[in-house]
């Protein structure tokens, strides 16, 4: 049992905090959200310079040899300051798909660019009809002319338009590995036949639908030695879940702090709001939720290296718990801010949006409670 950051980690966290706080004061953040891609390339480069993108990758791939703990530290800072960047998309999802799914050659070819921020990836996996289930994939990769022809549609691909390369899940042709499992293919974002219609998510992030209309790629586009990539996807998305949980926890703590500050300063009926016992007890509940969420971030993060069942169960426990808690805390934050909480220029409402988007990404609380129960029965 060790709940203390190493000295190196603490320094890293502090420098990320300073930089993110510097890049995302609320007004500047809002201006970035209003740009075409929803973030500033300059900001991205500054964080790359700090080693954020390199942090989780092995040194052989241009990384700094960190892992889940470093991702957690970054995510908490992002959530705290409502930072919007294609970090989850490129580093956590795309990067880890290559890291876990690629051959050594692919990892060494692709990851250095991801790690220095010069290349952005995105994971194009979800399809609307599958809702939150990972297994159903209707996008198809046909074998043709010594390569693959990919057709289908992917929905709500996070930062898909900003990506240089898409990691696309598709059903592989029969004959290879017997039944034609699901494979992951690297598709250049500007390949012929790729359509990407981008839109904003509620939290000011970006996503897009990806239409794949007979997109041709070589055999080397297939990540790894082939075989069903569902295990890789589960692992990658559990990393995404842990990242989102840490982001949400950072966001919750900020809502707690700013709401507490508001209650201490705002007066009604001749007293500060914070002197009303009913509000005090509710703030204690908010505080409690934040402490519990912090614990569940550890649960998700520190089990990412465990066996698949333990890892996924921990991720689902955290996603279910923090998903509900983040929404609850942010709703309380808005309510306790009163009318002020309803305004565009006050961050608390934007934290609520972030919580709602977090719940809509990789499965809501009900989905993860059910997954948790299912994995528990299997165990």
């Amino acid at each position, binding site marked *: 049992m060790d709940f203390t950051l190493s000295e190196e980690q603490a320094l890293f966290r502090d420098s990320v905090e300073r930089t993110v706080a510097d890049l995302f004061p609320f007004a500047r953040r809002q201006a970035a959200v209003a740009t075409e891609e929803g973030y500033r390339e300059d900001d991205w480069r500054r964080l790359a310079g700090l080693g954020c993108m390199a942090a989780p990758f092995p040194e052989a791939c241009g990384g700094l040899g960190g892992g889940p703990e470093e991702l957690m530290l970054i995510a908490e800072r992002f959530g705290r300051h409502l930072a919007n960047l294609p970090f989850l998309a490129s580093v956590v999802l795309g990067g880890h798909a290559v890291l876990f799914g690629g051959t050594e050659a692919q990892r060494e070819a692709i990851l250095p660019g991801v790690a220095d921020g010069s290349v952005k990836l995105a994971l194009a996996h*979800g399809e*609307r*009809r*599958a*809702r*939150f*289930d990972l297994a*159903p994939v209707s996008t198809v990769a046909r074998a043709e002319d010594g390569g693959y022809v990919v057709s289908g549609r992917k*929905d*709500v691909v996070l930062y898909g338009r900003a990506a240089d390369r898409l990691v696309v899940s598709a059903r592989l042709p029969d004959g290879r590995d017997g039944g034609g499992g699901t494979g992951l293919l690297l598709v250049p974002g500007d390949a012929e036949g790729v359509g990407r*219609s*981008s*839109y*904003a*998510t*509620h*939290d000011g992030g970006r*996503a897009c*639908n990806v239409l794949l209309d007979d997109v041709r790629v070589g055999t080397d586009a297939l990540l790894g030695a082939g075989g069903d990539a569902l295990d890789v996807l589960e692992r990658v998305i559990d990393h995404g879940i842990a990242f989102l949980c840490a982001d949400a926890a950072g966001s919750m703590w900020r809502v707690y702090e700013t709401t507490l500050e508001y209650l201490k300063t705002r007066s*009604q*009926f001749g007293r500060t709001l914070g002197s*009303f016992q*009913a*509000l005090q007890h509710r703030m204690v509940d908010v505080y409690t939720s934040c402490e519990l969420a912090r614990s569940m971030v550890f649960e998700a993060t520190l089990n990412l290296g465990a066996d698949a069942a333990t890892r996924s169960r921990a991720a689902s426990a955290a996603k279910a718990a923090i998903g509900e808690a983040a929404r609850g805390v942010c*709703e309380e934050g*808005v*309510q306790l801010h*009163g*009318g002020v*909480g*309803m*305004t*565009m*220029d*006050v961050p*608390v*409402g*934007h934290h*609520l*949006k972030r919580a*709602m*988007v977090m*719940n*809509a*990404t990789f499965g*809501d609380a*009900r989905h993860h*409670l*059910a997954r948790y129960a299912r994995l528990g029965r299997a165990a």
Partner: protein
Amino acid sequence: MDIGYDDDLERFRAHVGSVIRDILPDDLRDKVRREHAGLTPSDMRRWTRILHDRGGWSVPGWPAEHGGPGWSYERQYVFERELALNEAPPLNVFSAGMVGPALIEFGARDQKRRFLPGLANGDILLCQGYSEPNAGSDLASLQCRADRDGDDYVVNGVKMWTSDAPHADWMFGLFRTDSSGKKQHGITLLLIDMASPGLTMAPIRTFEGGDELNQTYFDDVRVPAANRIGEEHKGWGIGKYILGMERFGSAEVGRSMGMMRRLKRIAAAEPAAGGRLIDDPHFALELARAEIALREVELTERRMLFGPGGPDAMGFEASLLKVRGTEVQQKIMGLMVEALGSCGAIDAGDMRPGGDNAEPLGPDAAAHAGRVFYNLRKSTIWGGSTEVQKNIIAKAVLGL
């Protein structure tokens, strides 16, 4: 005892329902189906006019002499419910249910003549000038001053959270005319022409992107004393009366019932685990819970409205309808966002027809679910926050 409509009321319901379906323009119905997203003040003027021309249906509780059909409370209730269930816009509550009845009760003959026809036919839109930056939950501490100067009041100060101020013709508001006594004293109710010199507005954007709210600034705005409703310094009572008049409104049961129908349509269309979301056992249970919670509020509202003494006998216990009704409505809107799965993350701005997003994701009716969900966070804050309502119940009903 009977929790439903008797034969007479049922015939009335069928009649007004069929008329509503008849006169409701498609574009208005489509906006209602988008959970009211995009319903503009001019839409409300148009709808008020349509209802008005049908026989004064825009002001169902007003007596015939003022242009209304003079319906009984039961009929008003049924009519408003039918509007919601047929996915029509609601009545203009400021005109029909709040300021109109107050004018009929307390207004001078001349005031009635000047204002009532326009309120009934939609020519006059009102906005409400109650809240101020330092008078929210604690409304009686309002400070916006109206100083008597001959036949006028001279108004100075700021009003906050004024909905649709730029589209309104008149504001009904509470102003401080005397600061010497306890704070509920010395408040006066004025009607102010929004075109008055010295009156300016600045929009307050809400976090979901809405722009219906405003701050309204008064800089030596002259208001004829003839526009005062009731006595000077005695506006607090009338102001509270006006709020209390909203008998059929604050719980928003009708609107929530419409939402619930739409939510079920969406859940029946959304995919889940190879079938429909509505058949997913976990989602179905939440849906059932919300539906039952809504039914609880609906029946409790009926009980309170139509118990012994009727609507006029409703006391402070009615505050629980607002508390619980808004909670349930927020719950339903939350489920609508959740029903959309990962598409629930998408901001409505880009899902409008012609938007960047070529093909709308999720059922079209839910395109605005997220924004409406955020917007409705206000409903537990405004019109007397949940906290204020609980204080009221604790004191007035529980005797604590």
